[in-house]
């Protein structure tokens, strides 16, 4: 298709180390492209909020039903590790915000550095998470090797909930807190991993010079995603580790 009126719009690169950006053919202007993608991404983030919202609703529902289970269960988590992880995510959120800022001002090396720092945060978070899960596994609160072994109707025993130390012996449905803990943190962890992958992707693009003051949209959107991951953890930390 070659219409006379359809020449493509190119945003020039601000320097030799950058690549120009061609606006997609169906947009009339770079502003329209930027705003459309951004609105689309905010809508996507809204769906993420509602997706996690279901889990939060379940948390509040059973916190109300079994307050003692949640209090004792929350005490089994190491709040220090939770606090460290909160700090890691908050700092990584800051490095991400700085990374976006550097992309906005065409500072290629600094963008790469801040993205790399964010990536370090993501890895640190998952490593700490691994040790937390391992501790739960060792105490029989979530036995990962028997996670899918089901429920024994006759004995009323749940294969993955052994509670070797008997800490949950005096509260009803002791597994409930750990089931919700596991589900919420695992889905959140999945988002951390996806976010890390996205950060690697924009680092590649940044290295190639694709992102600069004229076109930093992907960096901006991945930044938003990463902040959302942080946002959810801000609520998970007090709810799971410091059960109110």
């Amino acid at each position, binding site marked *: 298709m070659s*219409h006379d*009126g*359809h*020449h493509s*719009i*190119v945003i*020039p690169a*601000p320097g030799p180390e950058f690549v120009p950006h061609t*606006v997609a053919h169906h947009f*009339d*202007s*770079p*502003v329209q492209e*930027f*705003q459309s993608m*951004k*609105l689309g991404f*905010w*809508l996507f*983030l*809204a*769906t993420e*909020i*509602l997706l996690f*919202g279901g889990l*939060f*609703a379940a948390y*509040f*529902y059973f916190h*109300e*039903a079994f307050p003692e289970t949640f209090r004792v269960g929350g005490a089994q988590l190491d*709040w220090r590790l939770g606090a460290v992880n*909160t*700090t890691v995510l*908050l*700092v990584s*959120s*800051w490095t*991400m*915000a*700085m990374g976006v*800022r550097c992309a*906005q*001002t*065409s500072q290629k090396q600094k963008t790469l550095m801040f993205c790399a720092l964010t990536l370090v945060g993501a890895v640190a978070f998952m490593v700490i998470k691994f040790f937390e899960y391992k501790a739960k596994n060792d105490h029989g609160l979530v036995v990962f090797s028997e996670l899918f072994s089901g429920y024994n109707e006759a004995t009323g025993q749940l294969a993955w909930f052994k509670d070797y130390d008997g800490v949950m012996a005096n509260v009803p449905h002791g597994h409930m807190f750990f089931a919700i803990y596991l589900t919420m943190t695992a889905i959140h962890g999945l988002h951390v991993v996806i976010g890390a992958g996205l950060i690697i992707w924009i680092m590649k693009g940044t290295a190639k010079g694709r992102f600069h*003051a*004229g*076109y*930093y*949209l992907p960096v*901006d959107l991945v*930044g938003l995603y990463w*902040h959302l991951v*942080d946002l959810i953890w*801000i*609520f998970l930390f*007090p*709810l799971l580790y*410091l059960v*109110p």
Partner: protein
Amino acid sequence: MSAHTHNDHGHAHADAGHDHGGGLQMGHHHVSSAAMFFNVLAILLVLTIVTVAVSRFDFGGANMLIAMGIASVKASLVIAIFMHMKWDTAINKIVFLSSFLFLSLLFIFTLADQATRRVDHEMHTTRTPVDKQWVHPSTLEKH
């Protein structure tokens, strides 16, 4: 006709951006100061300490409210500053904040059902003695 005007406008816009050293092509956007980002990080870390600190005290029924209140303040800071929402367009603000509004509907109705089931239960227990004395109208007519 209008095609040309429109595209030419877009092109002119991009060129103008280039002349000004880039940055203006994508419409209004905001480059926040690094100092502000750092201050926000500091506040977020302090609030994390506050979260842990207040959890050492028992405020009874207010525990959850306090914890969620502090978390909401932290979340608002992340949304407004780190996510640039403070400088974003009205529609983007509406979109993201409405997700919390609609989520609150799920919370309110579900938790209201749970809370008022207890009321149902209490009403039934207090009614029990009355129920025992209750006689079906058909038996009354026989007397």
